[in-house]
């Protein structure tokens, strides 16, 4: 049962007769009368069982986009019904207008639309639908809640996709398919053509030139069908907040951009989210289906407060790819990497593969580094300096092991990784 504002208004109306009847008993009687009327109204209200529900929600949307969940309400009773319906969702589902008024004749159907603007990645669930059925006097009514299942999968935002067109253009330049001829980049044999002045004399194919009267040169193109194995670390350090999102989200953006780019470049892409076990993966597919599959797999990945198992990552990579591959480790480079086994893992992987370690820098640390206000801020700057030095040391060791290292701010990591991938491709190091 619930009461409406009209009941309160009716009790407030009791003030007028108190101007003439100066007793408290009258006030009590008035309120009691109003309450009895309200109870009567609730008894007279139609049963909440009279409404039937069907829900229709889009399966998935991208974070920061809005979608609509529709709730089809049917009056199954033989009475006219009116009142309100609350279509409750988890707070992070961002339901903008969960409350709806309804007025349904017997057998009538209406559709209530709740706009959802999710604020977090992952599966967002609908909670119960609460029905209020108002009585004929509109003083009170009945209220019940019912579970109407609903779920929407919120995919990663992939804000880095705005960097994709520029990278694809660069990829085409390397590929030689644009007007700007940059043949020669890459290491995979493409075709033979006649020598023109300005070509690199090292590319002259003497054997073919001997068979023909002309001097022929070999042209190359970037390697195709290479393997790119991206490991997204979801352990302890991935949970650290960078601004308002965890580090994992920045890594995920980089993984998505790299995957999109590598798929266009014709490489085979494996992606795995890993801490001590594999949390999500996207392998074996290529082409346009990969990106949706990857986004779907990543949607529910959350950081876990455990230390990542780097030897297991090495075993995972070795079991999945046998040829040389570009292994991208999206993790955190800090002084703990020495103990955690990251260095050993990079060393083990570098024997067969090319390793790229990409780390997200903490903007909070940069702020600390610039602190000069008082002694406390200067000690903060000193601590940040020390952390930076330690990180630089670890990065130097990683480079020494033959790995490529990138560390960048959350918003810059994805384009940096993409650029490095293109640079590696252009130089034929893959």
């Amino acid at each position: 049962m619930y009461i409406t504002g009209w009941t309160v208004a009716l009790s407030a109306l009791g003030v007028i007769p108190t101007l003439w009847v100066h007793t408290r008993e009258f006030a009590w009687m008035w309120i009691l009368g109003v309450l009895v009327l309200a109870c009567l109204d609730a008894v007279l209200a139609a049963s909440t069982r009279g409404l039937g529900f069907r829900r229709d929600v889009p399966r998935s949307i991208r974070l920061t986009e809005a979608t609509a969940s529709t709730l089809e309400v049917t009056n199954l009773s033989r009475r006219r019904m009116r009142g309100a319906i609350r279509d409750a969702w988890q707070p992070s589902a961002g339901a903008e207008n969960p409350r709806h008024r309804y007025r349904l004749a017997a057998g009538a159907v209406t559709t209530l639309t709740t706009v959802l603007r999710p604020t977090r990645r992952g599966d967002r669930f609908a909670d119960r639908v609460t029905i209020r059925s108002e009585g004929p006097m509109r003083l009170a009514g009945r209220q019940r809640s019912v579970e109407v299942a609903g779920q929407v999968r919120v995919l990663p935002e992939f804000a880095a996709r705005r960097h994709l067109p520029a990278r694809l253009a660069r990829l085409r330049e390397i590929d030689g398919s644009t007007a700007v001829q940059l043949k020669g980049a890459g290491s995979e044999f493409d075709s033979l053509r006649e020598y023109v002045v300005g070509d690199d004399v090292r590319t002259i194919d003497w054997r073919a030139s001997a068979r023909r009267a002309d001097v022929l040169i070999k042209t190359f193109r970037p390697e195709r069908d290479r393997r790119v194995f991206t490991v997204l670390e979801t352990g302890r350090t991935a949970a650290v907040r960078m601004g308002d999102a965890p580090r994992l989200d920045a890594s995920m953006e980089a993984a998505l951009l790299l995957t999109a780019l590598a798929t266009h470049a014709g490489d085979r892409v494996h992606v795995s989210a890993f801490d001590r076990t594999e949390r999500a993966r996207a392998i074996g597919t290529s082409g346009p289906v990969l990106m949706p599959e990857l986004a779907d797999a990543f949607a529910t990945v959350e950081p876990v407060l455990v230390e990542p198992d780097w030897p297991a990552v090495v075993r995972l990579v070795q079991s999945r790819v046998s040829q040389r591959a570009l292994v991208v480790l999206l993790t955190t480079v800090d002084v703990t990497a020495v103990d955690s086994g990251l260095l050993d893992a990079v060393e083990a992987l570098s024997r067969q593969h090319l390793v790229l370690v990409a780390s997200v820098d903490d903007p909070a640390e940069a702020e600390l580094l610039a602190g000069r206000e008082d002694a406390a801020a200067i000690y903060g700057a000193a601590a940040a300096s020390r952390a930076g030095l330690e990180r630089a040391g670890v990065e130097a060791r990683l480079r020494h092991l033959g790995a490529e290292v990138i560390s960048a701010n959350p918003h810059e990591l994805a384009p940096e990784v993409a650029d490095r991938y293109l640079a590696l491709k252009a130089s034929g190091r893959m």
Partner: protein
Amino acid sequence: MTTEAHTRVAARPGAVATLRKHPLVVAGVLLAFILLGVLAVMAQPTDERPLSPANPGSDGARAVAQLLGEHGVDVSNPQTLSATNIQDPGSTTLIVSVPSDLQSYQIDALMEYPGDLVFLGADRTILQSLGITDPDISTYVADGRTDAQCDDADALAAGTINVTAGFGTHSGAAQYQACFTTPDGYSAYLVAPRDSGTVRIIGSTSIVTNEHLTEEGHAALALRALSHQDAAVWYVADIFDSSVPTWLDDTNDLPPSAEVEADADMLPPWFIPMLFMLGLTVLMAGLWRGRRFGPLVPEPLPVIVPGAEAVRGRARLYRRARAAHHAAAALRASTASRMGARLGVPRSGTMNALIDAVHSATGIPRDHVARTLGGPPPSNDAELIDLIADLDALESEVHRP
């Protein structure tokens, strides 16, 4: 048409079935109702103070108060002395029950009352202020049936009474009359006329109690002694009341004070009920707004690890340990590595190489650069702040385009 069934609210079992399922709840509710009823009956406020005009018990005096009311005397019963607030002392009897509970300053104040004063019970201070130098008060008097033995009209009208307590007036003076004196010399009633008003003391208080009022001439004496005036203010002494009586003084020619204290009586009569009604309405509004439209929805919260936690922790450690030299070393090293990167000095290079590079790039004296980058470590916060200012200045010179 879709074949998918509608989701509906589950049917509820009937009320009777629910009640049958939870007999304990039913029993509890019944018990609560019975308890509430008993409490409501018990909670009637009763006055149990002896000689109180509102006490219906055997030692109370409600019977006399009601009889006075029937005889046209307007009896009021203030709870404190200060609330007596007598408007017309000349025509108001001030009755005080159990004066032995009063403080002497309160009795002094009472004795100044310019009207009829009746004490139900005797007290040394009162008797002394009436001129009885050595009062002897007895709470028990044997063989109590006594005649008036004086020429007071009220006492003569009462005839005989049963004396159960009294006071001795051995050193009698002329300005009072003691009546109903027992053979032992204890009197039960005393009348002392004054310049304005008369003081009467009923020493044997059982006369006015509900239990003994009907005996002998008790009712006659009590009624006559208390009804000399048209109005009566009946105060029951309370040891927790420290106030003094108030009355309007005829002799006081000054106008009443201009300051008027706020009083509920000055508000219009509908004000309090209206406020009460509004209060109830607020309660209703609470019911209205307090009813939640469906349950709260829980949010599965993500793990939140604030950024740069370890760095902040290390900063606090530096600070607590006053490790200015450690902090300075870190700051110098990172500044040096940044400047080295800018000036092309390798990380593996010596400090001297960097100092030379900085000196040649900026023109800052070499010993200043050397002191800033590699001088003695600061020993306190102030020196650390100076050092970092030097480092920042140096770095901005190096990074100047």
